[in-house]
């Protein structure tokens, strides 16, 4: 396949699909809404199938590479556990009568899977909450103003500070409603415009971020 066809065909597919998906936002024609709905469904289907297939392939590759880098028992147990987890997921859902609603699957899901997930999630968020304090760098005007604004806004929610420093409450509200809203609206508008430019360029067939060298 020539380079022109390799570029032209996907560009045409993307441009036509994008126009068909975009049009119903502005034009109220039932046929266009149906086309948009079908295209959206296919996007999800293609993405989910490729995602699952590639995910499994890359996960296997990653586990193997990880074991090659560090050949110890922990790595081996980690790799095996991953597949045991997948086997339990699929095995119980497919073999038990009632599928995912079967008592065996529900027990495994609520007693084992959810608890492990919740524990790791809690661990991650405890680390996250404290990491900001450990890593904060006041090396710019932006960082300092964000830190000061955030501090006042946080302190004004603590009852002790509300009693000792009552002026903090209106100041915190003002920071939240005036500079915060003004700044964030401006930033969001600018980022949205930049994203729109990417979209227009893609529809136009001029997006070159992913062009090939050879």
């Amino acid at each position, binding site marked *: 396949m020539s380079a022109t066809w390799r570029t032209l065909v996907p560009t045409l597919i993307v441009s036509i699909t994008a126009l068909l998906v975009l049009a119903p936002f*502005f034009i109220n024609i039932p046929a266009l809404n149906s086309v948009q709905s079908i295209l959206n469904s296919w996007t999800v289907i293609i993405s989910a199938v490729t995602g699952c297939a590639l995910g499994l392939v890359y996960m296997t590759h990653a586990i193997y590479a990880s074991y090659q880098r560090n050949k110890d028992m922990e790595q081996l147990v980690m790799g095996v556990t991953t597949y045991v987890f997948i086997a339990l997921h699929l095995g119980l859902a497919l073999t038990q009568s009632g599928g995912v609603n079967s008592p065996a699957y529900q027990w495994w899901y609520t007693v084992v899977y959810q608890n492990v997930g919740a524990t790791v999630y809690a661990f991650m968020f405890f*680390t996250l909450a404290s990491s900001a304090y450990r890593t904060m*760098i006041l090396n710019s005007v*932006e960082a300092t103003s964000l830190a000061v604004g955030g501090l006042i806004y946080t302190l004004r929610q603590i009852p002790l500070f509300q009693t000792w420093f009552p002026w903090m409450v209106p100041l915190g509200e003002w920071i939240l409603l005036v500079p915060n809203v003004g700044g964030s609206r401006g930033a969001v508008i600018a980022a949205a415009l930049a994203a729109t430019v990417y*979209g227009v360029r893609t529809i136009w067939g001029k997006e070159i*971020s992913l062009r090939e*060298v050879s």
Partner: protein
Amino acid sequence: MSSVIVPGTILSALVLLVIAAASYYYFEKLKDPTYQPKLRDIPAITAIKEGVGKSLEENKPVHYQMGASGGQLYSTLVSMTLVALTFLRYISRLCAEMGAKLIVHMPYQAESIPLIEGTTLEGYREAGKPEDFKRENLRYYGRGALTWTQGVTASFAQEGVGLNLAIGIFYSDCPISLEMAKYMNGLNVGGTGRWIMVYAFAMMCDYVFLGEEIYAAAAVVSQDRMMLVGMLIEEVGKFFVFLLLGLGLLLSLVGMDVVALFNM
């Protein structure tokens, strides 16, 4: 007429039309080979080069991450995925040219992996060193931010960090990896277009791209005229928004219902 056009979308269509018209103008202008659009320097871009140099001096790898969910291909954030890929190509080329080891921490959306792999390889090809591209340095950690943060931080701890370049779609996954990179004496350079997480980058990075700066920086590092005029097109959009703001202010001062007017 009112039944064909969806109510409340006229202003959005107008913004889109202005951007399309500006795009047409600048795309035509690009036909002149002497036309070279210019953007201001962004300090964080220079810092990337310094970071690669630092990694070489310390014999540590350069890490690149586009967020645990940075591979979104069919969401409203897809433009940030494209920006992240532009930076990936740049850092791959830079690492190949300077001889630094690059580790790419891939997002959990597996459907974007071929793009990431291809873009990294393209970077090495641009530098004329495709043989230096190593697939095992593209790391995938399965689905979810939980496994991603653990995988990235484990890699930082085991292999060290010279430069940690973090650009893309970030949620609450970024503080943990930024902290670990700092803990391992790495240089943190990063940014996101998601305003809600810009605070984390502003406070935790040595050099930051604030919000839309990632789009401008992507254009600068690509050094492509098409990408550079993209920022000029965005400027036209910004001036149009300023115009609307001024118009809205004036009309509301004379007592008109601006909200209803702009919601046509």
